[in-house]
């Protein structure tokens, strides 16, 4: 107990000095970020802070401050949120949601979509060397990590798929280009089968803006036959 009391003393001294320099905007930021379930973008944060606050600097301070703690400040897809430290997952198994067990096919398909997006079904099949069952895509769409994003401007106008913000958030990526192993994949020319290796390689992007070779989806494209199509809704 002696050592604890001692630690506490030191702690309190630290606190004193901390209090003296800790700017109010750090309190505001941590309150906002703690309270929200969803990551918050800098625009939203900025809007609530007093004018003249250097948001970036304050976020960096907060991030540094929380780095050694059990809860860290992280940037996900350009938005900020608190998350528990990665090394503490053993402690939090009680909170863990039984994750959906994805089949190997689904995991591989997810990877192809993530690293190669926007990608069509035919391209996924070409890479995996097998035809894809409807179930695989359905499962991925159901996870909320994959979404149809447009139609490729080629004969047949196949639907293109990409990942969602949920995907980036679930895997804790600061941005999509932080996908593990992306650089190697890119470097070896694996992201464009039609071009010889070492040619220019597209970078996967979940930028919702359609590419040149994509058309927007049309009404009805998102039904996937999951539900009987609603009859004309107008009365």
């Amino acid at each position: 107990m002696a050592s604890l009391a001692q630690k506490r003393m030191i702690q309190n001294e630290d606190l004193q000095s901390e209090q003296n320099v800790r700017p109010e905007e750090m309190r505001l930021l941590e309150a906002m970020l703690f309270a929200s379930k969803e990551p918050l973008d800098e625009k939203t944060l900025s809007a609530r802070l007093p004018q003249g606050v250097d948001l970036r600097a304050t976020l960096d301070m907060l991030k540094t401050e929380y780095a050694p703690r059990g809860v860290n400040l992280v940037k996900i897809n350009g938005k900020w949120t608190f998350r528990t430290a990665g090394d503490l997952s053993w402690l939090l198994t009680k909170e863990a949601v039984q994750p959906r067990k994805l089949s190997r096919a689904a995991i591989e398909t997810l990877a192809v979509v993530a690293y190669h997006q926007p990608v069509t079904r035919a391209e996924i099949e070409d890479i995996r060397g097998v035809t894809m069952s409807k179930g695989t895509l359905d499962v991925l769409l159901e996870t909320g990590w994959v979404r149809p994003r447009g139609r490729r401007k080629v004969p047949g106008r196949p639907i293109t798929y990409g990942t969602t913000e949920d995907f980036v958030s679930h895997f804790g990526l600061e941005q999509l280009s932080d996908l593990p192993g992306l650089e190697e994949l890119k470097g070896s020319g694996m992201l464009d089968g039609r071009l010889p290796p070492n040619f220019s390689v597209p970078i996967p992007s979940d930028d919702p803006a359609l590419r040149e070779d994509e058309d927007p989806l049309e009404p009805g494209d998102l039904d996937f036959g999951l539900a009987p199509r609603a009859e004309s809704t107008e009365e």
Partner: protein
Amino acid sequence: MTAEIIPFEQTAPERASDEPSLVVDVEGFEGPLDLLLTLARQQKVDLAKISILALADQYLVFIEEARKLRLELAADYLVMAAWLAYLKSRLLLPDLNAPEGQSAEDMATALAFRLKRLEAFRDVAAKLMDRPQLQRDIFDRGDPEPIAQIKHPQWSATLYDLLSAYAVQRQKQAAGTRVRFEQRKVWSLAEARGALERLMGASTDWGRFDEFLIAYVVEPSMVATVTASSFASALEMVREGVLELQQHAAFAPLYIRKRSDPGQSPTPGAAAQ
């Protein structure tokens, strides 16, 4: 059932990386490319240095074994076998016929590329799944605090709403209080005829038509209707031979009297009726 190739979406049992040389069992392979990749791994060299010729041989042997065992192979395994046999022959006899298009080396390179690519994607898929995942390894705030919404009502209405609301209620009020439509006072033909019959009585003397009517024209507003209906009735009665009318000039006073010999119609039209 062992003969059946497991549909790829089922979770396939993990294949040991150091699989014994050639167990003829297509279970768990996700199609020919997957099988080829597994065979290539058995060459235990960098995929870049793989011998496509050796790989083709291995695949063909595998397929041959499977057929000996009468395993039912999916069509794409056989298509791949045929393609590899062709590739093999081209690789062994390079300039045979020198056909247009891809050279055998290009085809071999393309196959090697596809194998490398499949392996690369498997690799990143594994890396991706190894990342700490939300709600499995990393947690967000379990009990977020609600954000209260302060609602500012923004009222809207269009000029049309306003004007029609005004018009409708003014109209309704006007109708409700004042616009009780007055009964229009008109003399019906029947009324006029009754009156004429009574007024004429038995008199067979000529009398001025308008004088007969004076008695009925109580209000000035009735002049028009009384005159019109009486005149129309009078004409009708003339035609029936009950009355006689005469006028000496246009716009001159009209004289009227009861016929002394009713029954004989003076006009052919009345008789025809």
